[in-house]
């Protein structure tokens, strides 16, 4: 759908703590009903971005609008956002029901309406029957569900989630991911979700924004970010990619002695990078290099069998380590053997920055 009004529109927002620039001036545009994920390494500025949207911190520069209304000067309680925190955010002296009802009580909603609404939300997050428990009587996953219910019950326009699943074990996290996605579809609210877990991001996101070093590095659908990363950083951070840095020449990419073929020509003389996903690479077991492939020789230094996938590490003559992941059969070579890694030329992706 085409939208003239954005759910979140931040222009040039920045936040500094003293001399630390937590977030450099950034533009962020999130569509209505989108599940947007902020992904990135620790300390990158994800939480800062989220808290700026919520109004928990004041931007040092820039403006933020929610559904067309400028909220930059509004306190968190005056904004149409709600939030799920990583942990410790439930009110320990209130029951589950009181926790979920808190926002509605503040709005002076009639009691029976509150009760109906609360039990509807607890149903939605799969917690009916837990009304009278205290937070400390719940498991970590259940606590996060209560937080979710407490946020959803407000029917805010934007739901912010700051690493909501970080405290959960891997299995539970996976289940909750799918559930979050479902709930988002059901309630039709814009979700902005912060995580540093790639898998989590890929599972839930409609669109991923990669945040690092206080900058929004790149954004796009999970598929695009994974398959067609634009920036070298993205290729490095998402998936398992092998990256070659060098100078573009007429013949390809000069990586110091060797010239690799590029999928598309690049401007001669420019410093660029070429990335190839590890699962697009193969070890050639003595067979000749197929037509239209690139090959490099090196020494096999490690072999790990991971069930479905086998992973090998090859040290090139240049000293660079290359990871090759193949489904099924492992290379027959022993550790220490000379091997050749190869990939189809068009599997490579060029990064200008």
């Amino acid at each position, binding site marked *: 759908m085409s939208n003239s009004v954005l759910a979140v529109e931040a222009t040039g927002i920045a936040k500094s703590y003293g001399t630390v620039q937590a977030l450099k001036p950034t533009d962020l545009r999130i569509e209505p009903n989108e599940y947007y994920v902020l992904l990135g390494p620790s300390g990158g500025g994800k939480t800062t971005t989220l808290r700026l949207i919520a109004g*928990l911190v004041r931007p040092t520069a820039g403006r933020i609008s929610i559904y067309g209304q400028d909220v930059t000067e509004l*306190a968190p309680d005056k904004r149409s956002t709600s939030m799920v925190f990583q942990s410790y*955010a*439930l*009110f320990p002296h209130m029951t589950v029901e009181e926790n979920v009802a808190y*926002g509605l009580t503040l709005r002076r909603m009639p009691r029976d309406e509150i009760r109906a609404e609360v039990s509807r939300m607890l149903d939605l997050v799969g917690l009916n029957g837990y009304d009278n428990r205290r937070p400390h009587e719940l498991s970590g996953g259940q606590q996060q569900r209560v937080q979710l219910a407490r946020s959803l019950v407000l029917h805010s326009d934007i739901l912010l989630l700051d690493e909501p699943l970080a405290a959960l074990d891997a299995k539970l996290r996976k289940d909750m991911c799918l559930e979050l996605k479902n709930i988002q579809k059901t309630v039709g609210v814009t979700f902005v979700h912060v995580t540093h877990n790639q898998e989590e991001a890929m599972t839930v996101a409609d669109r991923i924004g990669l945040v690092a070093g206080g900058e929004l590095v790149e954004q796009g659908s999970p598929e695009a970010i994974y398959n067609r990363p634009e920036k070298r950083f993205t290729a490095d951070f998402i998936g398992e990619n092998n990256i070659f840095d060098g100078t573009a020449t007429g013949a390809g990419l000069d990586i110091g002695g060797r010239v690799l073929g590029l999928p598309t020509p690049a401007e001669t003389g420019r410093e660029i990078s070429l990335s190839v996903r590890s699962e697009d690479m193969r070890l050639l077991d003595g067979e000749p290099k197929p037509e239209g492939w690139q090959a490099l020789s090196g020494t096999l230094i490690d072999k790990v069998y991971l069930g479905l996938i086998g992973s090998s590490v090859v040290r090139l003559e240049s000293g660079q380590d290359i990871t090759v992941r193949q489904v099924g059969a492992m290379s027959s070579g022993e550790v220490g053997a000379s091997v050749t890694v190869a990939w189809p030329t068009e599997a490579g992706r060029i990064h200008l920055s």
Partner: protein
Amino acid sequence: MMREYGNPWAHRAKWLYLIFVVVALMSPVLHTVTISFNEHGFGAADYDFTLVYYFDLFRNEEILAALGWTFWLAFVVVVVTLPMGILSAKFYQTTRWKVPFLLLMLAPLFIPADIMAAALLVYFKTLSRFFSDTFGLEWFDLSMTTAVIGQVLWCLPYVFVVVLVTMARYHAEQTEAARICGATAWRAFWDVEFPQIKAGVFSATAFTVILSFNEYTRTNFLKGGFETFPTYIVSYMLNTGMTPETYAMSGLVSMTSIVIVGAVLLLALRKEQA
């Protein structure tokens, strides 16, 4: 850690010593309380229980007036000190100048009461001269106000520390969560944070009442036109030495404190078991 190979008798002896020191520190007061109930007073061979000296106290107009002032003073000091203690703990949590602020808050504890009281006395006299000469006002004449200021300085560090320790166990995310649910800053404080630091605020209140109730030196310097119970007792004792009346008065002061402390401890213990 019970040292498993340690000598159990040495361990017991250490406990015994600890208890002995506590009892020794308390014994003069306990002795005074005991004597205050003896009809024959100090040094007598016989012990006959009586409340007569206490009844006498409550028939003495001056003492009743002094008690009234003491409680009124304690009340005002609590009302002023508690919010200030909470505010200062909050300030400490948000300020970037934590260490200097902490030192400033605790410094009044280190300065001997009479030195501080003397400095304040001269300060208030100066201010009072200034206000009456320039504006014809009676501000900072020695009065209830000046006594309250002196006592607040004395109680504030304790309240600050007690509240701070309780607040340290509180997770600030909860305030943020409440704000996002639509609560104003004050509403979030009252609904979410206060219920969780209540215990600390309660002990701080009891603490302040006791500190104010027992305070002698600062009050004696800075009060104007009234006696509190401690100042009355001390001037009485210095004039007449220890008499059955002074024992009863001391007993009354001590037992008030003991009752308050006992109540606080009992409540804390009951809460712990719940």
